[in-house]
């Protein structure tokens, strides 16, 4: 079972206004009964974000690159301006490891190594928008409140060539990045949440060996815990 109390519902309801007509006396109206529509549930937001500074620590993994797989750690800082909108920053670091496929290719008879780049670190700043607030329950007894958010951040990603490149550059490059994300917070208390985010970092990076700019995508999942630092704004 799930319920949504979101901008989406409000949007649907607002749209219904254009086609709705006021009830008139001639219409069939149920008299003397209490309908489900006569009842609603008004609750406080469980994890009130408005005005809060939210910080979190996350473990991440970029599993979608066939040549490099990257465990990483991320730190998030979100300054919320309302329940839905926040300035969102994320910094992190990790180390891309060669996948079995990369090693297979590397060890093949042709002695050919793919020209892949590994993730080292990133610093991104942007906005986060959380229009959906919902809750779910399996039996009605244990209920979890959550929100769903999207992010748009920009910044820089530090990457390194997997093929060793000697000093002075060591194959390290800074890539301008635009990152799109979608995620959810599952509220476990008034000030604590579990946050899951799927993020796709789109970057343009200059590659030293081929002396060309290349487009690269780092798609990864992060799983972490967030909480409020200091008092809440509201």
């Amino acid at each position: 079972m799930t319920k949504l109390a979101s901008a989406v519902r409000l949007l649907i309801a607002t749209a219904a206004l254009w086609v709705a007509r006021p009830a008139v006396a001639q219409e069939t109206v149920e008299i003397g009964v209490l309908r489900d529509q006569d009842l609603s549930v008004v609750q406080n937001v469980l994890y009130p974000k408005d005005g809060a500074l939210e910080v979190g620590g996350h473990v991440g993994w970029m599993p979608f690159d066939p040549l490099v797989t990257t465990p990483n750690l991320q730190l998030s800082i979100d300054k919320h301006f309302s329940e839905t909108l926040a300035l969102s920053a994320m910094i992190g670091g990790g180390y891309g490891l060669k996948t079995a496929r990369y090693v297979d290719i590397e060890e093949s008879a042709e002695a050919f190594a793919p020209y892949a780049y590994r993730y080292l670190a990133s610093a991104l700043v942007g906005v986060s928008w959380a229009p959906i607030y919902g809750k779910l329950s399996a039996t009605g007894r244990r209920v979890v409140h959550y929100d769903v958010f999207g992010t748009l951040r920009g910044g820089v990603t530090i990457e390194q060539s997997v093929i060793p490149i000697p000093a002075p550059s060591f194959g390290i490059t800074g890539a301008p990045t635009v990152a799109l994300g979608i995620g959810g917070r599952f509220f476990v208390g008034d000030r604590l949440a579990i946050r899951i985010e799927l993020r796709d970092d789109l970057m343009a990076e200059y590659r030293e060996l081929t002396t060309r700019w290349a487009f690269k995508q780092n798609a990864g999942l992060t799983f972490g815990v967030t909480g409020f630092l200091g008092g809440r704004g509201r």
Partner: protein
Amino acid sequence: MRGVRAVLLLAAFVGAGPVAGAARAEEAVVAPSGSYAADAAAAEAILADPSRAGEHAAAWTRLGDALHAGGWRYAALVAWAEALRLDPMAAAGSYPVILDVADALDEELWIGELVGRDFAVPMDPETRARVAYVAARAHFAAGRWGDVLGLLPLVPERSPLHLDAEVLRGVTLAQQGRHGEALVPLLTSYEAARQAGRDQHFVATLALNIARTFFATGNYGRAMEYFDKVPRSDAFWPQAHFERAWAHFRAGDLQGTIALLQTHRSPFFADWYFPEAEMLRAQALYLMCKYPETVKAIDAFTVRYEPMQATLAKVAKDVGPRQAFEGVRTWLADGPTPLPEPLLQRLRYDQRFLDAAAALDAADRELARLPRTSWGERAAVKLKARADERTQIEGRRVLARVQDAREELAGMLADLQLAKVDLLSHEARLYERAAVTGELETERERIGKIRELRRKGKRVWPFEGEFWADELGWYRVTARSDCPASSQGGQDTE
């Protein structure tokens, strides 16, 4: 008359000089020896000799002290109780430990009756305050309000029990119907309890008492405010929430009443005994001219409570106090019980019953451990007698609850049948006049309200017939009244 008794008690206490009292106590003291077994044997020698009846009070005290030293707390308490019965002076030196043990075994009401009989007994100021408080509690339990109010001034402001004494004063005044006066100590105690960091249940219980007192004065707004201060996590929350519905009802907020009582309709309360909640809901629906809904509520009530009424009648006839007590104890341990379960739900949180059950378990363990000596046998006989008495007292309390419920349900079920006939005629007339009912809320107004609530940090969920645990207590009703303009609050004027 009760007031006079209280004044006399106070006079006796004030008149007793500690020096004179101490002298009397010294006369009665039997010098203790090193080993508790030897002490107990020495006390037994006196108790077994009827010609030394004048020394029996001191001997009981000595036996109590010996049993306490040997680790038999309950046996010690019953021995001390014997001493207090015969001559409180003989137990004067043991008062602090007697009060400690009585507190630990939740026997303060019993001991309070005994220690409160003689305030001439010499004791230090702290012990005196404790004696006054437990004696006041004992009088309260017996409904002797005047005596309670007479004793409570003996708990000085500096005493750690002063806050509890003030609460007791407030509750007693409320019991006397002096609600306005009761509010002063209750409200000051509430703030003091919060500042002193008293446990949540204490503060919540106090809030509930304040709410009830405001309700009794007709100040329904303040009553709602204090009912609302009982947190959801507290055992009294379902009761406070229900009583808050009464405050809304009395204030004329029928929608609020129905919204609050929606919680008690949920499956989470299916095993609870709240017939009055269902009756109140039916009444609110009736006053909103929701006659078909009222008939439905009445039918549901009948289906639910008629069988329970039959069970209660059987229990009242067949079950004795001991069986009732054991029935609850077994049920608390998830065993079968002859009693209707909804009636027992509140006993899960009834500290007095839980403490009694735990203390009687302790008594059983002590009975098994008491030595088969003459003093051990003597203590065992007294302990068993007290355990039986306490079982009877608690069992009778459970049966009183059964009897109250039986009478309550009998009255409600009889009234409902009459009301239903009346309702059916109202319903027929309602359909004839349906066209002149009030206006429906427009979709635009509804969305405006949702937006306003969102601005206040609230979320609005639709009710779709499912009950979610986290939604209990948060229902709102926006139903309009279906009463035609020519009728007022369900009373047909045609």
